[in-house]
């Protein structure tokens, strides 16, 4: 049964500073933008689980910009997957993010879904999240009073929970310059419109970095696996990875399948990036 919307309120700030002021005055406001997750909840009748007052960020164009400097890439929280796919900056600096964006939903979802929403929604299966984890991204949070920079790998505190305070907005994500070869794979039921059974991103740098989604309550980096790879042994790394991930049985897959495929994907990553 669809959520009754009669009692819901939507605030529509003109600027992102107005938005921060509104959040300061009413921390129960739920920010929304592309609505590709939030309106699924509306359609299921569970939208009000997070609150009944919403803050519409979608029109705040300054938060949609993608820029590049010598310090790296900055992606505004409201950049859509389509924006990311089309951005020459992202194609050049972070091609694995373009690959992830291309595999999210279909064009309709890519046109509305935003990277800030993917981060904030905090699903363990979020497809851009392993990329941001492997790239050592920084999440920029703003409140009316201050800005806070949080390493992406410290952003999640547990299943669907983050360090974001209710009065803060994710305004952008920064990605430091990347060396080495980037690699991304998503395994779902079909090529498009699928939620990941496993999603993995890797950077063949020295040391290599690996991040995986859908194998734990949050997206995870796997430091012992990375250390084994740095030491040069893929067999040791595979053994480590088997210990480091904690996949579960759920509606989309089984723990056994996820474990087997994840270990195979690590070998694939190592082989695919070997010549680079």
């Amino acid at each position, binding site marked *: 049964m*669809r959520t009754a*919307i*009669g009692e*819901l309120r*939507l605030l*529509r700030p003109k600027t992102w500073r107005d938005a921060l002021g509104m959040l300061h005055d009413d921390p129960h406001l739920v920010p*929304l933008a*592309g*609505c*590709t997750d939030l*309106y*699924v909840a*509306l*359609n*299921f009748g569970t939208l009000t689980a997070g609150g009944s007052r*919403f803050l*519409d960020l*979608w*029109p705040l164009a300054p938060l949609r910009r993608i820029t590049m400097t010598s310090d790296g890439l900055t992606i505004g929280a409201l950049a859509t997957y*389509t924006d990311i796919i089309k951005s020459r900056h992202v194609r050049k600096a972070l091609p694995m993010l373009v690959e992830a964006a291309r595999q999210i*939903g*279909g*064009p*309709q*979802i890519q*046109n*509305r879904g935003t990277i800030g929403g993917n981060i904030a929604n905090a699903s363990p299966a979020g497809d851009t999240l392993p990329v941001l984890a492997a790239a050592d991204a920084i999440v920029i949070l703003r409140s009316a009073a201050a800005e806070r920079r949080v390493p992406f790998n410290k952003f999640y505190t547990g299943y669907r929970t983050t360090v974001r305070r209710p009065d803060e907005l994710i305004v952008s994500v920064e990605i430091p310059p990347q060396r080495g070869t980037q690699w991304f794979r998503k395994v779902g039921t079909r*090529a*498009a*419109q699928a939620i990941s059974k496993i999603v993995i991103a890797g950077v063949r740098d020295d040391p290599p970095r690996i991040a995986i989604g859908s194998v734990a309550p949050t997206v995870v980096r796997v430091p012992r696996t990375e250390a084994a790879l740095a030491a040069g042994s893929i067999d040791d790394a595979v053994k480590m990875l088997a210990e480091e991930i904690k996949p579960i049985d759920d509606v989309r897959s089984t723990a056994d399948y996820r474990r087997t495929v994840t270990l195979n994907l690590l070998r694939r990553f190592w082989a695919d990036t070997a010549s680079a």
Partner: protein
Amino acid sequence: MKLTLNGADVEVEAHPMKRLLDVLREECQLTGTKEGCGEGECGACTVLVDGEPVCACLVPWAQVEGAEVTTIEGLGDAHPLQQAFMDEVGAQCGICTPGMILAAIALGPNPPLEKIKAGLTGNLCRCTGYEAIYRAIQSVRSASPRVASRASRRVTSDAHPPSGGYPARVTGQSSSGE
């Protein structure tokens, strides 16, 4: 709230969080836009917002303020893609068809097959197996590229609406009595 709907400037009042899909079907009485899954998976409710395909079941009404929205009614009955879907039997039960056609229009003129396939990944069809749909879209290209190109520009250009606008016949109704 003001917007451009199928080429006409309209003013329609609805709850800001009502789904674009419901406002189109109820307030605007444009029932060509279908509801399939209601969760962004199937693409049956695809409409164009500023030339881009979106799932109307996932868009709050407030977010199309000032935008240019195109539904299947905006094509009249004369669009070459509509005829091609009939000629190639690209429609069977018909629920996916309006969304398929709008997603195809967003691809621009003469899309290669790979671009057609990628562009329709967000639109599910449980009848045709897709081949007839791909054939229909390709047939517009091979039969009359100039018509396809003109028609495609007509609805994908958000910056320059065509002189004379869209076919005036079906633009729906609005609460302002447009």
